[in-house]
């Protein structure tokens, strides 16, 4: 109530600056509050922001390593259909309070730093890798960030310290973007590559040179299969990469970060709707059509679900969506994202649905 950042239970942060990075991409500099527990380079965080009175949660990779000033940054690319990302890039103003989850993810450096590393990224897939690269180069330049949150660091060993002090491993970064201007952190990456001899940067500008094919990888980085590899980018690219590495029997050297966008289930807006409904707490699954309330579908399949008025007024039947989207049977509106609480008595499945009931 007095200072939103003081909350010990509910991690929050204040956006202090919004920096333009590339066309449609911006970095938010956030000062986290008391409850923030730190992060490791490469991890992601859930950010909740109120837009027109409604809270929206999205996941973003942290683009900075832990910083001496305690700030964290996320770099956001405004997607054409991304209501929240567009708001963050174009509309949000410094001073805005956001809600934070805890930093999560295994897309991080191992305790024993490998000799040779390869990063394969495309588009905004560069963001977690940027955090890792910054950490590596800062480390090597002996500009070790002083542990900013000693208490947090003590609790979570390694949060603020990177292994292999003072040594820059051999790093290859293969990054794809449409044009040189579209490369997020382009100027910084090029400057780093110039300054740090152990870092080799291969930029692929798909607008002029076409998509990067994995067959070309051997030319760019002949020892790719022996390198510990981190890959982040669009799903189809990651699928290809995964297959490629598996074929080379190098799958155990590959770490991938998929964009955790809460995408509506395919075909959700299609005619009729309906889909497979999973009541995860009851461990019951049932196929439901687009006009049957989830409540009826679940009860029909033998789930013991909370219920009340069965007309959408009493909120006794609500449950938390784990995935999928639902149709409001009163208005026809299709809505819902992971974590939203929905009324099962007036909601039907719009595609596959997983609900915590």
């Amino acid at each position, binding site marked *: 109530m007095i200072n939103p950042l003081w909350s010990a239970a509910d991690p929050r942060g204040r956006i202090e600056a919004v920096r333009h990075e590339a066309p449609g991409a911006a970095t938010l500099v956030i000062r986290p509050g008391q409850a923030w527990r730190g992060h490791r380079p490469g991890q992601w965080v859930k950010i909740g922001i*109120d837009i027109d*009175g*409604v809270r929206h949660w999205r996941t973003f990779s942290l683009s900075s390593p832990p910083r001496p000033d305690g700030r964290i940054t996320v770099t956001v690319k405004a997607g054409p259909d991304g209501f929240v990302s567009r708001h963050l890039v174009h509309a949000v103003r410094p001073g805005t309070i956001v809600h934070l989850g805890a930093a999560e993810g295994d897309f991080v450096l191992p305790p024993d730093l490998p000799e040779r590393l390869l990063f394969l990224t495309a588009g905004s897939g560069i963001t977690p890798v940027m955090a890792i690269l910054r950490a590596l180069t800062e480390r090597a330049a002996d500009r070790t960030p002083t542990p900013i949150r000693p208490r947090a660091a003590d609790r979570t060993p390694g949060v603020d310290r990177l292994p292999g002090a003072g040594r820059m491993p051999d790093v290859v970064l293969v990054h794809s973007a449409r044009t040189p201007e579209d490369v997020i952190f382009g100027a910084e990456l090029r400057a780093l590559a110039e300054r740090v001899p152990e870092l080799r940067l291969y930029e692929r500008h798909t607008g002029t040179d076409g998509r990067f094919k994995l067959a070309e990888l051997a030319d760019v980085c002949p020892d790719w299969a022996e390198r510990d590899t981190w890959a982040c980018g669009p799903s189809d690219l990651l699928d290809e990469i995964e297959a490629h590495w598996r074929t080379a029997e190098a799958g155990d050297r590959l770490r991938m970060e998929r964009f955790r966008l809460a995408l509506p289930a395919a075909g959700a807006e299609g005619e009729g709707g309906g889909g497979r409904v999973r009541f995860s707490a009851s461990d019951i699954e049932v196929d439901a059509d687009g006009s049957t309330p989830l409540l009826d579908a679940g009860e029909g399949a033998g789930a013991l679900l909370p219920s009340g008025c069965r007309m*959408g007024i009493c*909120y006794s039947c*609500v449950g938390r969506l784990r995935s999928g989207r639902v149709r409001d049977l009163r208005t026809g509106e299709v809505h819902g994202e992971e974590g939203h*609480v929905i009324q099962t008595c007036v909601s039907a499945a719009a595609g596959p649905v997983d609900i915590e009931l």
Partner: protein
Amino acid sequence: MTATTAHLTRADYEAIARELDAIRDEVAGDLGERDAAYIHRIIRLQRGLEIAGRAMLLASSLPPAWIAGTATLAFAKILENMEIGHNVMHGQWDWMRDSKIHSTTWEWDNVSPAEQWKHSHNFVHHTFTNILGKDNDVGYGILRVTPEQEWHWANIPQPVYNTLLAMFFEYGVALHDLELNKILEGTNDPEETAAKLRAIGRKIRRQWGKDYLAFPLLSGPQFLATLGANFTANVTRNVWAHMVIFCGHFPGDIEVFEEGRLEDETKGEWYVRQLLGSANISGGPFLHLMTGNLSHQIEHHLFPDLPSNRYAEIAPRVRALCEKYDLPYHTGSLAKQVGSTWKKIFRYALPGPRGVVPSPSPKAPAEHPVAA
């Protein structure tokens, strides 16, 4: 069918449902920053008042501090229960997806556990509004508030019961979901009743621990003065809440219905039942705030999950709809509604009047009546 709805055709009911649904959709689609700012402002105001009241009561041995602190705390408790707690637990603010201001997480400053209140109020009362034998809010199981209820000699002292109920209303509300009538009939699930009782016990301990132990202890040697102040604030809130809530369904020509009406009740008939069974209190913005906008009981019963700050805005349209379909729109000043409610409490303490049976239902006439 009741006289008030004899003129409505099936098409009228359908049109009423359509028009009211349209109001709901319009408001629900328009919710945004303005509304979020409203509830945030009210919550800040409430917390400020509560802190100020509790702080003043740290000097509760001084009479001016006692009076000002008690009044401020009572005001804060009323806001918390009425405009915030009741409405948040209705899900009116769930659309903001703020996990703190949410029907699934809010626990109010009241001995009634939120979980049980939501069942007895949001579901039972709001779904079966004014159905005798279904809606336990009709007389709260101990009062005869309408001639359709059978008279019993135990009704004679009901003005006294009602006074006590007013003072300790939160305890009445806490016991409400136990459904005493079922316990008396022996039709309750003993395990469920025991679990509910334990939850009530826990909530009472928590509330007493705060109001009658922790804060009095904080004020040191003024322990008893602070305890008395907190007790007074709780009773003040109880009496106010009781008064507002009794004005919602008991004054004037409010109608009650028999259970048969629920069979195949259409959405339009449900809406009309809510209209006939609810009464507003006329007044200014401050009265509306203090009643948690239950002064717009009619609008609240039509749209229990629309944010309370919107009720005043849609009230003229609901009233116009009532005029259009020649339906009553029960409203009156606080004094009038309170007077009318108490008059009934006194009148129906005694038997009679004879020959009154519950309205079978304001149902639409069947288009093709079955030949007898």
